[in-house]
């Protein structure tokens, strides 16, 4: 039990540290928001008034706790360029990016597990060599290039989907998911290739372990050894990598949203970065940071159930 309490303690601590980091990062930015908001007729008095109004003149610590308090209550401040509350801006977009990420992660699992096991079973055969070369190539193609290829081949030529008009969830559930298939696939492909390589490598490594020899000596067939013993042992490193992969997919979705112009959080992040709309950027980064920490935390906890040796440390 103490083990779990300790873990939760560290989890809260990390979140607190990240929030400080993110907040400070955006305080040291050169240039003052007020100058841009006021535009050309920025006179010193107006700037001072606006600063006071926005509370920018209060000491950093006070502003931090004020920001944190608001953040926890869901009020993320005002967007500079859209001058409407950030949370309104974000509401729909969060769900889009989340569904894109989860769909992509699901694809990674569906593609990599069967193939990984199959390649481990036929390791060092010609099939394995051919697939691994293919795997290496797919891994090297950046997701946005795959995205462009998909839009070109499946969108413009085969007309499976019309590339530019995104289908809102509200008006057509099936259409929404159908449109997301190709973007999710273009994120998932390189990641799945990496998982395949890791899973296959891990299983082949486990196959040379002594306990596999013992399993054979008891009369297990090759499949029984793979299924009963090697699979679980090979999973330990794979789980760590899956956590990293999920986080990478979030990053990947930001780029893919540009390719398929999906109005998700990523796209908003890019426009606000170019427009230097800091509250929006700060909020999105904070949300992603929270998700990343939670994912890592869950992976950390799941080790206990996969590898009993860790449980007793």
């Amino acid at each position, binding site marked *: 039990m103490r083990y779990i309490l300790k873990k939760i303690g560290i989890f809260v601590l990390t979140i607190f540290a990240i929030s400080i980091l993110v907040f400070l990062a955006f305080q040291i930015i050169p240039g003052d928001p007020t100058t841009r908001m006021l535009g050309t007729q920025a006179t010193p008095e107006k700037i001072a008034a606006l600063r006071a109004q926005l509370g920018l003149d209060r000491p950093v610590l006070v502003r931090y706790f004020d920001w944190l308090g608001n953040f926890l209550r869901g009020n993320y401040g005002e967007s500079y360029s859209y001058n409407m509350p950030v949370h309104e801006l974000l509401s729909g977009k969060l769900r889009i990016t989340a569904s894109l990420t989860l769909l992509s992660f699901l694809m990674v699992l569906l593609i990599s597990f069967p193939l990984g096991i199959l390649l481990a079973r036929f390791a060092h055969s010609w099939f394995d060599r051919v697939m691994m070369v293919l795997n290496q*190539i797919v891994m090297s193609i950046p997701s946005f290039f795959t995205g*462009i290829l998909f839009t*070109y081949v499946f969108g413009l030529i085969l007309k499976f989907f019309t590339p530019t008009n995104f289908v809102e969830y509200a008006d057509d559930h099936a259409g929404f998911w159908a449109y997301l298939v190709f973007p999710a696939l273009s994120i998932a492909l390189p990641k799945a290739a990496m998982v395949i390589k890791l899973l296959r490598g891990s299983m082949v490594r486990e196959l040379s372990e002594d306990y596999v020899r013992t399993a054979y000596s008891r009369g297990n067939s090759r499949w029984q050894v793979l299924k009963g013993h090697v699979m679980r042992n090979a999973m330990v490193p794979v789980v760590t990598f899956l956590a990293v992969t999920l986080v990478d997919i979030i*990053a990947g979705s930001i780029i893919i949203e*540009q390719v398929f112009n999906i109005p998700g959080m990523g796209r908003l992040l890019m426009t606000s970065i170019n427009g230097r709309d800091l509250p929006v950027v700060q909020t999105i980064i904070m949300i992603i940071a929270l998700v990343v920490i939670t994912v*890592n935390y869950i992976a950390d906890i799941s080790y206990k159930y996969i590898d009993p040796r860790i449980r007793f440390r």
Partner: protein
Amino acid sequence: MKKLKNSHRAPNYNLIWGCVITSIMVLMIVVSFFWTPFNPDAMSYAEKDLAPGGAHLLGTDNFGRDIFSRVMEGAGTTLSIAFCAVAIGASFGTVIGGLTGYFGGAWDEFIMRINDAVTAFPSILLALVIVTITGSGRTNIIFILGILFIPSFARVVRGEFAKQRQMDYVKNAKLMGVKPGRIMFVHILPNIAPVLLSAVAIGFNNAVLAEASMSYLGVGVSQTEAVSLGRMLLDSQAYWMTSPWQALSAGCAISILILGFALISEGLGTRPMWRPTTKRRRKQHA
């Protein structure tokens, strides 16, 4: 004891192909500094949207610029950025990793925590955050990627140093009175060279990907500064119908660059050419 011949070992295909691909690309880039078939920025309205073949090997874009020379130039920019970023990341990473790995103690714990925290975040995200603060542009990108690569290098080097530190030959060196500096760089470094080179190759792989992504997102190398493959991809996306080969050539160039480095790291990491294969365990039942 007969000298172990390496010839009958299965040649390390990954490494061979990796070197072949990378050296072709590097050759192309080096040539592009002196000569390119056409001036990459020369627009000629007459030759707009020519299909590949003939004078323009890869055709021309919507402004009539020769795509092949732009790809050569773009690859040069991407690779040079990647090179500088990896140089920064590898050098600082090796020193930090070496010191913390070899000496351990409180510093080791502290820096390890930071490394874990930074590497937990996808480098692209961090880069985007910093770009918001520092602004884009070639030099900024180099420093951002360079700094972001330090933790991943430091982690790899630290792991290797910590592992080698336990080995008897290092204890032996200490007993002889060899100074720590010499132990680290003369004794330990040659033994971790394969892993280090593999990490450098992975570094290049990630650097090219990161630079291309950021340029594609419009926050990398600005259009006026230099030609970048990522930027070409972004600009050519709108001209799918008229000149798809523009995006295709830029995208393929990026992929080939990444593939070259990925193969090298694969070849170096698992079974470097000069180290004979470990004795294969005779276990699997046929």
